């Protein structure tokens, strides 16, 4: 393990040449071994074109219980290697992505098809007299993002659900390399429109790590406040949407109003309800004054009381529980195999939270207590959200007392050559990973983005297995994944 992998810290820069290069087949076996035996998982698996046009594959592996991150690499000589997917289902999307981007063919992959391109895509289809297929999307009845859902059903029962995305491919990773440094932040904020802070924060960490600069504590506090506010606003919105999907209207409209209360706090902070423009590499772009801190304390206290009342009503209504419980179950073992992250993983009994496992920014100084539920159903996913709202509000309340008097940002312009940095943040959907490489001229040469949705979409497919097709919207809402974040 020692010589094949380099142990790294979250949001720190290392020289690219320090990453071990091992033989491809050994590389593959080590990944499988690490993930299957040592409670690890794949954080990232990506290809990078080297200067001499050969392809180098990097993998970042995480051991959540120990809080350790490892990186390793292999040079791809031929265009083939033995597929990881049969041993390690969570590698499926990563291998298909490598195949799509670089044409690398994993031998014995169960079904190699594109991830985001429509060319050469085939759907799984069941044969049989009374099996029927239902195709939903990519154009939907509500104002939501495009995605195609293919159900193979017998009556109301779903045998298989296949999700095809890629309708919003913008090529963000390539744009990151081409754009001016000042535009990259805007790009990062637009990866997923509802996770502005999460992605912008990961991008800022990457630049700061590569520039080797430390953000002042005041900047860190503001960032953590914004990240938690984003989480609370989205979780509250999700609980409202879940109530709406089961037709429980009073709670749905109450949550809808409450969501705006929290988005409005971000608005008060920097004039944008999603927090666009609040962060910048080196710190925060907007400051808190004492007036605002006092005002926030009052609003948080009131918000906490109202959120408590309304979640109590939601979880004490039998007809709601009857819909939530045992719907869309993802068992702990399945969640582990698929490598789920964020609230969806925590709802299935996996203790995974970047804020605790690989702490960054303010979370290095102030711990946040992670939340977990065991049942893996819609109820658990709703419950985890409700508890996280509580924890995050408490965190914000305490953090507001801990705002030191100092600068909110420093400049960070010079970035180091030939380095890389793995930056993970816990967005409201889960782990966001940005991996940045620089070349000898200190320019970004590869920028890899992994949205939590990339890990979690397969979870939704599993949740629907043998479920009822009429429960799909509810399950979908309980995951509430990003299409744009997946498509990039």
């Amino acid at each position, binding site marked *: 393990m020692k010589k094949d992998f380099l142990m790294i810290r979250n949001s720190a820069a290392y020289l690219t040449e320090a990453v071990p290069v091992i033989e491809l087949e050994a590389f593959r076996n080590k990944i499988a071994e690490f993930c299957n035996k040592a409670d690890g998982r794949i954080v990232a698996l990506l290809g990078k074109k080297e200067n001499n046009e050969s392809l180098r594959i990097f993998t970042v592996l995480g051991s959540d219980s120990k809080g350790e991150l490892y990186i390793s690499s292999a040079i791809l000589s031929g265009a083939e290697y033995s597929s990881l997917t049969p041993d390690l289902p969570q590698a499926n999307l990563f291998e298909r992505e490598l195949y799509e981007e670089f044409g690398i063919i994993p031998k014995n992959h169960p079904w190699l098809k594109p991830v985001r391109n429509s060319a050469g895509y085939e759907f799984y289809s069941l044969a049989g007299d009374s099996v029927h297929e239902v195709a939903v999307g990519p154009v939907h009845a*509500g104002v939501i993002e495009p995605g195609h859902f293919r159900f193979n059903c017998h009556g109301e029962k779903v045998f298989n659900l296949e999700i095809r995305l890629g309708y919003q491919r913008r090529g963000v990773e390539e744009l990151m390399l081409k754009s001016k440094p000042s535009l990259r932040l805007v790009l990062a904020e637009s990866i997923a429109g509802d996770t502005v802070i999460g992605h912008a924060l990961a991008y800022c960490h990457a630049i700061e790590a590569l520039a080797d600069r430390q953000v002042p504590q005041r900047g860190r506090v503001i960032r953590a406040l914004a990240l938690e506010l984003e989480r609370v606003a989205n979780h509250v919105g999700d609980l409202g949407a879940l109530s709406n999907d*089961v037709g429980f209207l009073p709670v749905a409209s109450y949550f809808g109003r409450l969501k705006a209360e929290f988005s409005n706090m971000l608005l008060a902070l920097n004039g944008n309800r999603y927090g666009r423009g609040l962060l910048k590499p080196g710190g925060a772009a907007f400051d808190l004054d004492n007036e605002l801190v006092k005002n926030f304390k009052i609003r948080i206290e009131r918000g906490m009381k109202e959120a408590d009342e309304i979640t109590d009503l939601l979880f004490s209504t039998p007809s709601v529980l009857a*819909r939530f419980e045992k719907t869309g179950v993802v068992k702990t073992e399945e969640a582990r195999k698929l490598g789920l992250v964020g609230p969806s993983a925590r709802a299935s009994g996996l203790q995974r939270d970047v804020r605790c496992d690989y702490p960054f920014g303010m979370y290095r100084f102030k711990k946040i207590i992670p939340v977990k539920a065991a049942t893996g159903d819609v109820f658990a996913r709703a419950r985890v959200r409700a508890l996280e709202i509580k924890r995050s509000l408490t965190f914000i309340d305490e953090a507001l007392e801990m705002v030191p008097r100092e600068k909110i940002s420093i400049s960070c312009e010079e970035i180091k050559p030939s380095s890389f940095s793995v930056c993970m943040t816990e967005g409201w959907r889960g782990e966001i990973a940005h991996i940045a490489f620089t070349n000898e001229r200190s320019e970004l040469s590869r920028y890899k983005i992994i949205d939590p949705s990339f890990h979690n979409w397969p979870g939704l497919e599993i949740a629907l297995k043998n479920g009822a097709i*009429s429960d*799909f919207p509810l399950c979908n809402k309980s995951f509430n994944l990003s299409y744009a974040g997946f498509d990039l």
Partner: protein
Amino acid sequence: MFFIILHFIIFLAMPPFFIGVINRVKSLFAGRRGPPLLQPYFDIIKLLRKGSVYSKSASFIFKIAPMLILTSIICAGLLMPLTGDSLAGFSGDIILFVYLLALARVLTILQAMDVGSSFEGMGASREAIFGSFSELTVFAGFVTLGIITRSTSLTDIFHWGHALKEPATLFLFATFFFILLAENSRMPLDDPNTHLELTMIHEVMILDNSGPGLGIILYASALKMFLFMALTALVLLPNGDLPGLMPAGFLLLKVLGISIMIGVIESIAARIRMIKIPQVLIASFVLTVFALLISLFERGMI
């Protein structure tokens, strides 16, 4: 002549108003001001003034179905004693009444399957299954009412005025109320407000209808709902032998009460799982059978 005109005014003009009432109650519960009470009329008028878009795979059935559905429901309305007496009642009209509504259902299912969309096929199969359960209950309910009142026409059944003294009618009220919710795609069995095709029953069958066709179907649904509300109200509190305009006035009040009840029920409970709907419908059938047994037993017929 006056009562004929009154019957038509009540039956053809009032129903959308009660949908407005339900929506208003739901809005109040959700803390919103809600749309105007007359919004359902505005919606229907707006749709009637639009053009239609037809699916390429739709045949003539899809085009004529809305009118046929409306016609069969209006015919059913002629049998309902809205002003004390019905317009076209005869002995045995309960069977015609149920089958006219069934005809409307069959036409809705046919026009849904006609366009060949998988959503609408799914909705049609749900409607067919759930409909077969609720028809059974409606018939059992009418048989019970027939035994209690010794008549088989709706007018005669509801001329009898001692419902509250008859324990069976309490059961019947409960089951008719459930059937009212089930037949008119109300919560907790169906959600009339959802935009999620996969969870719909009735709404999904009319996804392809547009313009006047959709307007007519929405209007027909309002009429159908009014018929069921009137029926449910009359089971609990029949007209008896009230003179003049009183039956019509009381009926509207009772229907208003039922609309408010529906609004409240839709606000305080979540929708039940699709898989459980047949169980609920069977339970209401069992309740009807109890009512039947009670009324038979009281009369010494068993």
